[in-house]
């Protein structure tokens, strides 16, 4: 089988050589991709940890240094609105996680457990809105919030980010409830539990991995969001860290050190999620896309 197809004239490349080449190729790819991913991260951390004096000491960026300091982080706290931005980020993110998760659990349960006409259409609408353009949605939301006097409020930010986070959350929860056999609930009813108690004591505990995944997804959408808040918020005091720190790009008194320090601070919450909740996170990938 293999003699007549591989390796040029007469199949000179033996299977063993092929395997060895493959091994080298594997490690080489691993090395290149790792370097591609790690280099920017390393630069971010090493730049954030040097004072301006050591950072530029040779006319170039100092990339290997033992004189590390937290001075950039200190500057961020004392001379910029970073603490305020972070607080806003936490408020907005908590709001989005709450709204999306509750909506996803309630609707997911309803969609999975009851038969009604138009279910396929509902599924398509949810999936279509999941693929839709945030900016196209943001423009009318901007006008509507303006007319309602809600523009420039955390509430506007929470609702508009939830608009883009909720469709996939609902879809995920719907799939999740479908996979929980209804027999658990039925045995609870037959032993006399009310519908509400069944939901509280049987359904919700079983659905826990599902809504943890949903909450993580909503968290990452909200923590990451720039587009929606950029449009519905214009008062700096309300900015989350993404929008607030993006102003640093144009501020001359904020150097690379402070910018990278802000980047590090912003990266800590998602990094902790990746570290401790990796499996929940990957479940989102697997449930939503197969």
């Amino acid at each position, binding site marked *: *089988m*293999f003699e007549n197809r591989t390796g040029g004239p007469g199949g000179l490349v033996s299977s063993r050589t092929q395997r060895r080449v493959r091994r080298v190729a594997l490690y080489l790819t*691993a090395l290149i991709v790792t370097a591609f991913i790690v280099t920017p991260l390393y630069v971010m951390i090493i730049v954030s940890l040097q004072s301006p004096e050591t950072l530029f000491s040779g006319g170039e960026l100092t990339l290997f240094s033992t004189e590390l300091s937290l001075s950039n982080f200190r500057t961020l706290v004392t001379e910029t609105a970073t603490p305020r931005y972070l607080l806003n980020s936490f408020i907005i993110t908590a709001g989005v996680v709450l709204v999306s998760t*509750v909506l996803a659990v309630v609707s997911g349960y309803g969609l999975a457990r009851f038969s009604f006409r138009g279910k396929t259409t509902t599924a398509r609408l949810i*999936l279509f809105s999941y693929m839709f353009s945030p*900016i*196209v949605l943001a423009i*009318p939301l901007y006008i509507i919030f303006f007319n309602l006097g809600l523009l420039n409020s955390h509430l506007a930010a929470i609702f508009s980010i939830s608009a883009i986070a909720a469709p996939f959350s609902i879809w995920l929860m719907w799939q999740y409830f479908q996979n929980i056999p209804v027999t658990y609930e039925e045995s609870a009813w037959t032993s006399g539990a009310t519908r509400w108690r069944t939901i509280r004591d049987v359904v919700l505990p079983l659905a826990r991995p599902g809504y943890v995944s949903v909450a993580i997804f909503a968290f990452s959408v909200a923590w990451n969001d720039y587009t929606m808040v950029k449009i519905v918020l214009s008062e700096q005091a309300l900015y989350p860290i993404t929008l607030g720190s993006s102003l640093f*790009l144009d501020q001359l008194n904020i150097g690379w050190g402070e910018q990278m320090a802000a980047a590090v601070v912003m990266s800590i919450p998602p990094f902790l999620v990746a570290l401790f909740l990796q499996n929940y996170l990957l479940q989102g990938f*697997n449930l939503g896309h197969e």
Partner: protein
Amino acid sequence: MGAVRERAPALVSGNSTRLLLLFALLPLGAFFTVLWFGPMFYTLVMSFFTDPLGSAQFTGFGNYLDVLTGDTFPFYLWNSVLFAVSTTVLSLVVGLGFSLVVNEQLRGRQGLRTLMIVPYLLPTVVVVFLWTLMLDQNLGLLNQALVEMGIISSPIAFFSTPGLAMPSVITASVWKWGSFAFFIILANLQAIPDAYYERAQVQGASPWQQFRDITFPNLRGAILLILLVRGIWMFNKFDIIWLTTRGGPINLTTTLPIRVYDLAIRSGAFGSATALSGIMFAILAVTGVLYFTVMEPEAEVKD
């Protein structure tokens, strides 16, 4: 599925059940009405008026004609397609290559997997910070390396040089969103039974033959999904382009989302902005129909 269907009648009988159904689906209906149907309907209505927020005057398809026949529309559409296709295809190549590596018996593969999550989770703003520094004209690592190797004589401002701005934005985007392809393909790779490969090895198939005849056919669905879904998302991307180039230089990275933002928020031309939104809506709807026809994602729904 059969079990659920058989028991469904028992579930939908009774008043408390009907109440529960109402309670469960009312928020869903309210959510979509207020945050999706309302705004989209409003957009479509506005797109038929000139100056819809001021002295609104009905103009029929006037705004659409203006947008479609303007000199710039084909150019912005081309930029959008170029950005979406390049980032998606490159992400796929990186994701496929690397998931094949991580799927092997390699030392440290668990660490590599965790590492791949990081770029995907970092906020786009952080990714933009990192890449503006990496590609910075005065201090960027790439410029330093290229100058030292003698490839260029003086440092380049990547994000503001025509011809290099788009590739730079694409590179940063692949860095961030390549992991999406990686995780989906990895999950699908791990689902291929080992027995297939063992049988192929017994028959003397070379690694390349194994990839061509076993791995690739089993990944076809995942690859199609990535091309379609990731492609749509990249077509819609606003933040990374806006933050790195503002659509410049000379509009070379202005995609349709950037244009919508420019028209609406910067120029206040809501007539044209909503008409362009309407056009994007149509493009996405067509792609959506394609997605539903090819992938049938809603087939996972049980009645």
